[in-house]
C-alpha cells in the first residue's frame, strides 16, 4: 500500500520565502531584485488602480455605468501578481480584475464600456495577454489550464495566471481544472483572491476546509499568503511562475485579503456584515502598509507621493471624459459582428433585415 499521506512540494520554491503564517520573510523581502524605482512603481500602480476604482464607483452613481464591482482592498494582489509575470504570460480573470487589466495596459475608459453595457469585451485579449472577463464563477479556470496545456504543447515557456475568488473554489469547474492542471503539469499559477466573502456568504459558510491545503490533493503545492502585502504577492507569483516556466507544473496561491467595498454597486453589505470586520481589515490596508514601508526604506518622499497622487487624478479625469465620449458601435455590429467568423446564410439575412429595420428609426 502506498503511504496515506503523499509528500508534495519538495520542489516548492514558494514556501521557503514565507513564514508558516504566510508572511513574506524579511530576507526574502530584500531579495526580490526590485530597485527603488520598481518598488515605487508598485506603489504608483496601486494608487492608480484604487483611484480608478473610486472613479468608476462615482461614474456608476452618476448613472454612467450600469454596474461597478469594487476591488478596494485587493490592490496588492492585482499589482503584485501582474508585476511578477512577463507581458506575454496570459491572465484569465474573473470579473473583479479591472486593476490587473490596467496594469497590463488595457485602457480603463475602454474597459469601462463593459460596465456601461456597450461591449462584452472591449479589448483585444491577444494584445494584452488578458482574457475576457468571466462572469459565470470559476468557468475561466479550465480556460487558463487549457491555455497553459497549449503552451506546454507548443514548447513555449510562457506561463498562465488563472485567478478567482474564494467562492469560486466551491464550483465543480474549479476542481476539475485543478485536477487537469496537475495531471498535465500545466504551467499555470492558480491565484485565489480570498476576500472572505462571496456576495453575502462568508468564508466559513463557503467551505469548512482550507483552500491552499487542497493543492496536494491535485499533486502540486499550494500556499496561503498575506494578500495585502504587495511584495509578498509579487514574491509568491514570481517564484511560482519561475517554477512553472522550468516545467515543474502548477502552483496554488491563496492570497488572503478583504473585499472592503460592496460586492457590486447593486449590493448592500450592511445587510450581512458587521462594520467591525471592515474596521479590522482597514487597519491592514495594502496601500497604507506599503506606503509606510516604502517611506521607512527611504524610497518614497512626500514629493514623489504627491506626484503619484496627481498622476492618479489626471488618469481619473481622462477616464471619466473618455468614457463619456465613448461612441457606441452601431447596433447591427454590436449584436451580430463577432458571433461567427463564418456566419451562416440565415444569420446574415437576419442581420440584414435587422439593419434594414433600423434605418427607419
Amino acid at each position, binding site marked *: 500500500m502506498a503511504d496515506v499521506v503523499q509528500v508534495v512540494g519538495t520542489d516548492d520554491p514558494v514556501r521557503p520565502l514565507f513564514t508558516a503564517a504566510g508572511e513574506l520573510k524579511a530576507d526574502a523581502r530584500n531579495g526580490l531584485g526590485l530597485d527603488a524605482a520598481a518598488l515605487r512603481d508598485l506603489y504608483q500602480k496601486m494608487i492608480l488602480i484604487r483611484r480608478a476604482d473610486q472613479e468608476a464607483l462615482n461614474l456608476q452613481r452618476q448613472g454612467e455605468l*450600469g*454596474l461597478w464591482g469594487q476591488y478596494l482592498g485587493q490592490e496588492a494582489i492585482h499589482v503584485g501578481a501582474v508585476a511578477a509575470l512577463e507581458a506575454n504570460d496570459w491572465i484569465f480573470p474573473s*470579473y473583479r480584475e479591472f486593476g490587473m487589466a490596467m496594469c497590463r495596459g488595457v485602457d480603463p475608459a475602454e474597459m469601462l464600456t*463593459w*460596465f*456601461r*453595457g*456597450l*461591449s*462584452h469585451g472591449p479589448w483585444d485579449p491577444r494584445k494584452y495577454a488578458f482574457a475576457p472577463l468571466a*462572469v*459565470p*464563477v470559476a468557468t475561466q479556470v479550465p480556460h487558463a489550464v487549457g491555455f497553459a496545456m497549449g503552451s506546454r504543447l507548443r514548447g513555449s515557456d510562457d506561463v498562465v495566471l488563472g485567478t478567482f475568488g474564494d*467562492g*469560486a473554489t*466551491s*464550483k*465543480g*469547474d474549479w476542481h476539475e481544472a485543478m485536477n487537469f492542471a496537475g495531471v498535465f503539469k500545466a504551467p499555470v499559477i492558480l491565484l485565489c483572491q480570498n476576500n472572505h466573502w*462571496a*456576495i*453575502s*456568504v462568508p468564508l466559513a*459558510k*463557503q*467551505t469548512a476546509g482550507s483552500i491552499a491545503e487542497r493543492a496536494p490533493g491535485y499533486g502540486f503545492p499550494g500556499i496561503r499568503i498575506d494578500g495585502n502585502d504587495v511584495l509578498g504577492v509579487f514574491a509568491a507569483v514570481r517564484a511560482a511562475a519561475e517554477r512553472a516556466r522550468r516545467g515543474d507544473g502548477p502552483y496554488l496561491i491563496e492570497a488572503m485579503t478583504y473585499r472592503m467595498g460592496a460586492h457590486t454597486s*447593486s*449590493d448592500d453589505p450592511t*445587510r*450581512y456584515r458587521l462594520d467591525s470586520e471592515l474596521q479590522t481589515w482597514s487597519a491592514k490596508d495594502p496601500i497604507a502598509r506599503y506606503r509606510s514601508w516604502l517611506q521607512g526604506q527611504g524610497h518614497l518622499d512626500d514629493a514623489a507621493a504627491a506626484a503619484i497622487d496627481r498622476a492618479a487624478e489626471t488618469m481619473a479625469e481622462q477616464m471619466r471624459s473618455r468614457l463619456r465620449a465613448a461612441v*457606441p458601435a452601431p*447596433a447591427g455590429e*454590436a*449584436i*451580430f459582428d463577432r*458571433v461567427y467568423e463564418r456566419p451562416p446564410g*440565415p*444569420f446574415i439575412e*437576419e442581420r440584414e433585415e*435587422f439593419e434594414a429595420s*433600423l434605418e427607419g428609426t
Partner: protein
Amino acid sequence: MEPVTMAKAINLSLRDALAGDEQVLVFGEDVGTLGGVFRITDGLQKTFGVDRVFDTPLAESTIIGIAVGLALRGFRPVPEIQFDGFVYSAFDQIVSHVAKYRNRSGISMPITIRIPFGGHIGAVEHHSESPEAYFTHTAGLKVVAPATPGDAYALLRSAIADPDPVIFFEPKARYYMKEEINPSLEVPIGSARVAREGSGATVIAYGPTVSLALDAASAAEKENISLEVIDLRSLSPLDMPTILASLQKTHRAVVVHEAPVFGGFGGEIAARISDDGFDLLEAPVARVGGMDAPYPPSRYEKLYLPDVDRILEAVDVALAYG
C-alpha cells in the same frame, strides 16, 4: 389587500408555503441573511430559521443535487438559481436526475426550482437569458412562468404543492410590477389565461412578454385592431385548448418570447397550432423573439428583444395575409 410587487408576491408565496408545510425548504446562494439578490427571500430565514431557509456554497449543480437527496428524504425543496445564466452548470442534475429520478425509483421529486429570467434590466452578460426551451424539451419536468404578481403567488403555491419537479421562471424585469393579489385564488399548472379579449389576432406570450403583448394590444386598439392576448403561464404542459379556442375567433397568431427564435419554445407553439389548427389558420403563425445571436451588451437589449413595434408588424403581416 394593498397592491404588492411581484417580488413581494413571490416572497409571500414562499412564506405561506413554508408556514403551511414543514417539509418545505428554501435554499440557494445568498437567500438567507441577504434575502436574495432581488430580496425575494427577504425575512424568510428570520421567520423560519437557518434550518429551513439557508445559504449554500456557490455551486449550482450541487444546489440541485442536494435537492434530489432532500426530496428522497421526504422534503419539498425550493432551491433558487440566482440568475438564468447560471442554471447551465446545474443542467446535468436537472436533466439526468430531477427530471428522471421518479422514473427510476418510484419516488416523487416535489422540487421547485426558481429561476429569475429574461432581460430588460440593463445587466452584464449572463444575467438576461431566457433558457426555457432547454427545459420544456425535457420530459419529466413541468415548466411555468407567471406574468403578474397574482399569478406569481398562486402558481408558486401550485408548483411547490405539486408532487413533480417544476421549473419556475420569474420574469425579473417585472419584479416591481404591482397589483392587488388574492391569495385564495388557485392557478393550476397547465392552465393559460386570456389576458385580454380580442378578435383580430391572438398574441401568445408568457412571463416578461405578456405586458408587452398587452401594450401592443392597446396600441393596436387605436388603429381599430382588436388583439386577443393569451398569457400561457404554463409552458409544459401547454394549454392547447385555450389557444385553439382563441384561434377559432381570430384565425391568426403571433407568438412572442425573449429567447432567440431559432429552436425556441415559440417553435413548439407554432408547430402545434399549425398542426392542430391547420384549418383555422388564415395566416402563418408569426414568431417574434430575440435575435439568433447571444444576448447583447445591455445598451442594445431593447433592439435585440421583441418590442411593441415588432409585435404590431407581425400582426399587420398576419392580418394582411391572403
